[in-house]
């Protein structure tokens, strides 16, 4: 007992008086203005869903994890969100390990109310099997360094962790569709959570001199303050939670003033969180592309001509299929839908070939595996264009020939179309056969060796098709 008392940090009377008298003149110990926040910085860890927040000297780490559990009986369609706060003894010498003290419990409750009860996270999307299995999201908040204002910092850490968290995708399978298969992140891209709004907590400290109030108190100011209030708001102007547990009585006008200040601060912090999360997401997408293009790069070094041909071909195919698409859209033969489907398949299948040899061919999986969408193709296609040029300059007969073939075909088809007058039929047939052949090629292609053969086939077939018609 005595040891614990001996170890607690107590503020001296001089320090207290100094802080109070400085505040009367509107000065704070660290030089801030009364309504200024300390510098907020958010760093993300290596895993999805781990964030570390520095608010001045305060340091909080937030980690989000998920687990499949049974839902609560009164809410069988909703997932659950639970928040665990750990007041680590490393943050403050007075924090004891073991059972959380009352301040730890209060902090957990304030953040819980702000996040869960305001429905910031969409829990209905976390349902897998109604009444049986739902996702339970667990947020662990570790307070690493107590520099004051733990509530705000912990709140930001929880939001940052939730914004970057990805849960594994799962699908229903089995006999009655009752079995749940959880896909590992390598097979299917994990999904982010749906977050409707970001509730931001802003803490005010009141001092015994009635008109003095301070935003974002440091731990020395917290030791001196007479009362505190935390207001959790979002940028839509909703008040998610207000916590004022005892302490100094405060007039109504001051409360209104605080809420107005809190609104502006919440806007600033929301912008900051959104920017850092976006930066993290773009970097993550870039890293994914680097990882996916790595096997292609290895192949390039190993079997140069084949892969380049494939890339060239894929570019050609995309161009052809693009042109086919536009032509076909105008005409609308029965092949149209098949063409557009095939063009999607072409993209999808070229992707799967380079990424996963013999991976799943589902259309849903593949386009989604490229998070960035069209922008993710930009570095790739730039490289391909260069290869394209190099190959066209170098004497690569087959690709040149195939290019010429296509050009000649399209020329021939247009030539034939105009004099014959059965323009529409010609255009429909030749691009259709072309795209059909392209599709069949991609269907047939599973190894790089096969890439060489179909070209020869195409050369022979194409003139015969044109002649035959």
């Amino acid at each position, binding site marked *: 007992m005595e040891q614990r008392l001996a170890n607690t940090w107590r503020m001296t009377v001089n320090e207290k008086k100094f802080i109070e008298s400085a505040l009367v003149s509107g000065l704070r110990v660290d030089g801030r203005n009364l309504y200024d926040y300390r510098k907020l910085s958010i760093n993300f860890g290596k895993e999805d869903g781990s964030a570390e927040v520095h608010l001045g000297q305060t340091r909080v780490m937030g980690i989000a994890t998920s687990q499949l559990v049974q839902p609560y009986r009164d809410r069988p369609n909703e997932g659950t969100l639970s928040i665990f706060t750990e007041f680590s*003894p490393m943050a403050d010498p007075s924090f004891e390990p073991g059972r959380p003290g009352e301040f730890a419990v209060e902090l957990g409750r304030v953040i819980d109310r702000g996040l869960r009860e305001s429905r910031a996270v969409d829990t209905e999307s976390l349902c897998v099997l109604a009444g049986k299995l739902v996702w339970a999201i667990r947020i662990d908040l570790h307070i690493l360094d107590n520099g004051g204002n733990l509530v705000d910092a912990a709140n930001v850490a929880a939001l940052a962790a939730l914004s970057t968290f990805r849960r594994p995708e799962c699908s229903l399978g089995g006999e009655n569709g009752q079995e749940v298969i959880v896909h590992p992140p390598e097979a299917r891209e994990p999904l982010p959570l749906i977050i409707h709004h970001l509730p931001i907590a802003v803490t005010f400290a009141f001092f015994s001199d009635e008109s003095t109030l301070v935003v974002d108190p440091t731990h020395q100011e917290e030791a001196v303050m007479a009362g505190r209030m935390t207001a959790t708001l979002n940028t839509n102007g909703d008040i998610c939670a207000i916590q004022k547990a005892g302490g100094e009585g405060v007039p109504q006008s001051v409360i209104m003033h605080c809420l107005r200040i809190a609104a502006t601060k919440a806007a600033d912090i929301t912008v900051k969180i959104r920017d850092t999360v976006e930066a993290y997401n773009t970097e993550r997408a870039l890293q994914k592309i680097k990882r996916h293009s790595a096997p292609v790069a290895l192949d390039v070094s190993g079997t140069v001509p084949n892969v380049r041909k494939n890339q060239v071909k894929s570019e050609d195919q995309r161009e052809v299929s693009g042109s086919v698409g536009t032509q076909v859209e105008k005409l609308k033969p029965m092949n149209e839908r098949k063409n557009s489907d095939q063009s999607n398949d072409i993209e999808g299948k070229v992707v799967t070939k380079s990424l996963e040899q013999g991976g799943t061919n589902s259309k849903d999986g593949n386009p989604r595996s490229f998070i960035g969408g069209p922008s993710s193709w930009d570095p790739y296609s730039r490289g391909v264009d260069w290869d394209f040029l190099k190959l066209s300059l170098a004497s690569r007969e087959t690709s040149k020939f195939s290019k010429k073939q296509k050009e000649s075909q399209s020329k021939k088809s247009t030539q034939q179309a105009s004099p014959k007058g059965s323009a529409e039929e010609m255009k429909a047939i030749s691009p259709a056969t072309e795209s059909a052949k392209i599709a069949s090629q991609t269907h047939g292609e599973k190894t790089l060796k096969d890439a060489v053969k179909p070209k020869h086939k195409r050369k022979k077939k194409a003139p015969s098709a044109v002649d035959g018609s």
Partner: protein
Amino acid sequence: MEIDRADGRNPNQLRPLSCSRGVLNRAHGSASWAQGNTQVLAAVYGPKAGTKKNENPEKASVEVIWKPKTGQIGKQEKEYEMVLKRTLQSICILTIHPNTTTSVIVQVVHDDGALLPCAINASCAALVDAGIPLKHLAVAICCCLADSGLVMLDPTKLEEEKMKAFVYLVLPNSILSVLPEESSSVKGEQMEQGLITSVTHGVMSVDDYLHCLERGRAATSKMSDFLRRNLQPQLSSDSSKAG
């Protein structure tokens, strides 16, 4: 026989090390140690008055609190706490401040294999940062044994799970002496061969274990160089921490 490791290292290669001291403001000493993707944050609160009931009050005692990344504290964490406590007690000079408790708090930031060695290294650096008197530094390393008998150092989490056995070794750091080599060789040899802690998982033969020990000793000389380099410059420019 060469086994290709997933990240392209050869069997004797460690992951990139990084250590930063003085990262926390309230704690008396703190250090963050990262080996590849495994990262651990350690904080030390300097000698506090009193010891716990079952501790010897004639000596200083070390208290370790291990905080996992997520989930509740279970037996694994208790075991780590015990190993860490005994290791640190053997490197601290316990007779200087009797009847005091030094608390070491370890927070796991990310676990990608070799977690306990990383924590030991971090705690050692944090103790130095707090200014706790130590006999010598401790350097910890993990050696794993593949089915083929090949010994690999510093495995990642995937490698640890695949291996037949692995061992955590804690050795004193190598001595940097200004005395000529002859006079210190006898004492030096004894010191350097001392093994502070060894925790094994899985089955390995005696020869394999001794082989691991040799490899570990060779690697710790590199690690202790790194540690020494890392600790030195900051010491000269470090201002005293007041409260």
